[in-house]
């Protein structure tokens, strides 16, 4: 009798435990979840200055991080309500698929295979692939890397493809050393384990500017096709969240083109051109269509700034990185950035 009772008790316990984890509602949009939760769950990288890295106070700083803040400002009206989760290259896709993060904003190149498993929304910046190499080796082009050892992040990051392409193009062979973190790869390079370190162009520039003890000892060589379209991604099948993220990024570029800045957004909302006034809260139809507050666009620009402001704050001439905007300039200035019309 006693054994029977124990068995029954155990069964009840199992049943109770199963009951504690109710099935998550798969049909609910991330927008509703974010509103209910009061914060946006966003990806962080493993620490690339200028793109995403926590500062001395533990606040995430960088271009990719600020894109997340723009979403928080749009949905919640408060750019600070973002929870960042640091992820490495191999962790990021599953994190989006499982809903651990609402949005991936972390130096991720848009590719066919990735877009088939998560949903890329739009390009946030055009990057390239770059090799940091010691000047003392006398390497000036990718061909000079023949027989050299290259430290890099494993886990299927796109720099690997770029390196393989360069190997085929210049009929050469390099020895690879893979790490699970691009930071470890960088440190091993700077310690002398490798002749070179390959990563994204902006990341390479930022590592040289902020981490290298003597930046003048190292040279940058660009490899691969030259363009890595980095984008933000969300889980598949969430059209509402797709609308919000896609048009929030569009807003940032639009604001730059129309000269709407953090400083003048109040004035612009009152006395700017008609289209500007409408978008900044004058016409509630925008917010209504997206399921957001009528002043969502105003909140984003007021709290985060436009594309140019985000760039300058994190990567521009005011920072040690001083990255050239190149393709990330507005189309009116010779770049590839242009906003879709708000008609």
């Amino acid at each position, binding site marked *: 009798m006693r054994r029977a009772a124990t068995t029954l008790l155990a069964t009840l316990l199992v049943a109770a435990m199963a009951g504690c984890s109710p099935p998550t509602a798969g049909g609910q949009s991330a927008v509703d979840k974010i509103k209910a939760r009061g914060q946006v769950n966003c990806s962080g990288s493993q620490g690339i200055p200028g793109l995403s890295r926590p500062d001395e106070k533990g606040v995430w700083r960088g271009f990719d991080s600020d894109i997340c803040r723009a979403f928080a400002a749009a949905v919640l009206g408060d750019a600070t309500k973002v929870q960042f989760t640091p992820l490495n290259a191999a962790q990021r896709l*599953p994190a989006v698929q499982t809903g651990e993060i609402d949005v991936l904003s972390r130096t991720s190149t848009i590719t066919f295979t990735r877009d088939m498993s998560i949903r890329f929304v739009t390009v946030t910046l055009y990057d390239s692939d770059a090799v940091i190499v010691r000047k003392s080796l006398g390497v000036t082009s990718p061909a000079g890397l023949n027989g050299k050892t290259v430290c890099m992040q494993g886990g299927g990051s796109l720099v690997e493809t770029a390196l393989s392409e360069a190997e085929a193009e210049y009929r050469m062979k390099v020895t690879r050393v893979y790490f699970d973190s691009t930071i470890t790869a960088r440190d091993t390079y700077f310690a002398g384990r490798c002749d070179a370190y390959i990563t994204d162009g902006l990341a390479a520039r930022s590592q040289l500017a902020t981490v290298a003890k003597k930046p003048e000892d190292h040279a940058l060589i660009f490899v691969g096709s030259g363009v890595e379209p980095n984008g933000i991604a969300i889980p598949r099948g969430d059209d509402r969240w797709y609308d919000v993220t896609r048009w929030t990024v569009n807003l940032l570029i639009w604001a730059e083109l129309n000269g709407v800045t953090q400083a003048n957004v109040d004035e612009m909302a009152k006395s700017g051109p008609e289209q500007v006034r409408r978008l900044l809260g004058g016409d509630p139809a925008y917010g209504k269509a997206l399921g957001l507050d009528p002043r969502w666009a105003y909140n984003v620009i007021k709290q985060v700034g436009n594309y140019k402001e985000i760039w300058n704050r994190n990567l521009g001439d005011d920072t040690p990185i001083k990255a050239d905007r190149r393709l990330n300039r507005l189309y009116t200035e010779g770049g590839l950035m242009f906003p879709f019309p708000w008609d």
Partner: protein
Amino acid sequence: MALTVSGPPGLARPSRGVVRRVDLLAQAAAIAVVLVVLGVILATTRYNLSARGIQLGLDFLVERAGFTVAETLLPYDPGDSVLRAMWVGVTNSLFVSIVVGVASTILGVLVGVCRLSPNPMVAGLARVWVEGVRNTPPVLLLIFLYSLWWQVAPSDHAVALAPGVLASIRGLAVPKVTTPWSGMDLLLLAVLAGGLAWLVARPPRAARAMPRPFLAGAAIAVTALAALMLGLDGRAGIILPRAEGATLASGAVLTPELFTILFGLTLYTTGFIAEVVRGGIEAVPKGQWEAARALGLGEASVLRLVVLPQMLRVVIPPMTSQYVNIVKNSTLALAVGYTDFLTIMGTIINKTGHAIEGTVLIVVVYLCINLTISTALNLYNARIAMRGGR
């Protein structure tokens, strides 16, 4: 309850039959509940997966892998299939596990014996080793060793540690011995030699009349002939290591990553195995030592002939879990840049997006490896265990 009570009424305890039936009923209920819970989990998972647009399937295994692997035992090319990449990862992991397993067993027995040495210096050092590694996380030890390598090894030239052994930040180079046989040839020869040795040890009835030395000679001759025929087109030689700056240009090069995982895990596991061995030795009754000494055996012979064989019975079960731990700890290779199975699976998951199948495959592969180890050692344990009252 609609149970028929078979015993007479007024009994203080229910009869055996009743107890059994209640038990059965409870167990049936338990199974039913477990099945329902499993069903709910499965249904929820399927619902959530389809809601998130994730499709399950193993089709991706035959697709092109498309990524490079730094160090492989087997030939591998990014154009190979995902399945091939997985197999390359498994062999890399098994290689580390086997080398660490063999090395730490030998060292562990030595250190375990040293722990019991009457010499305080020897016993003390062994104790420092054991306590040191037993009380630190293995990943810390590995990262420490790996960064130690950068700090200590010269980054602009190579130093000769011994004649023919060069070390630099790029790794450790030793003379490379080239045999005229390929890996496959060596495997064939090993199988042949093993088979013949077994035949010599237990000759079939027809050959039992022949003298042992004759049989052994014949076996050696056959093996030698096979080796000669297989190796006719190859050349034997020794390639001495050579360095260009810090780059190790020739010889057999052990990269710092592989060296760290091999050395670090051996250091770590040795500590545990030494304790198992010490416990095993101490479990052998004192009378056995005294009896062996009374027979006039020297200390070394006492250990080898009397104590260690008896110790084996005690240590096999705990050793099994040590070997299983080695396989599990080999995944820490990730921290020091050596590409093991887990690293490769991470890449596959990232490239293909099949996180669920990938994770299940990881579990299945490690389960297979570890269950094989446990089963083999349990069989061995059953063979050497004391039987009956003997």
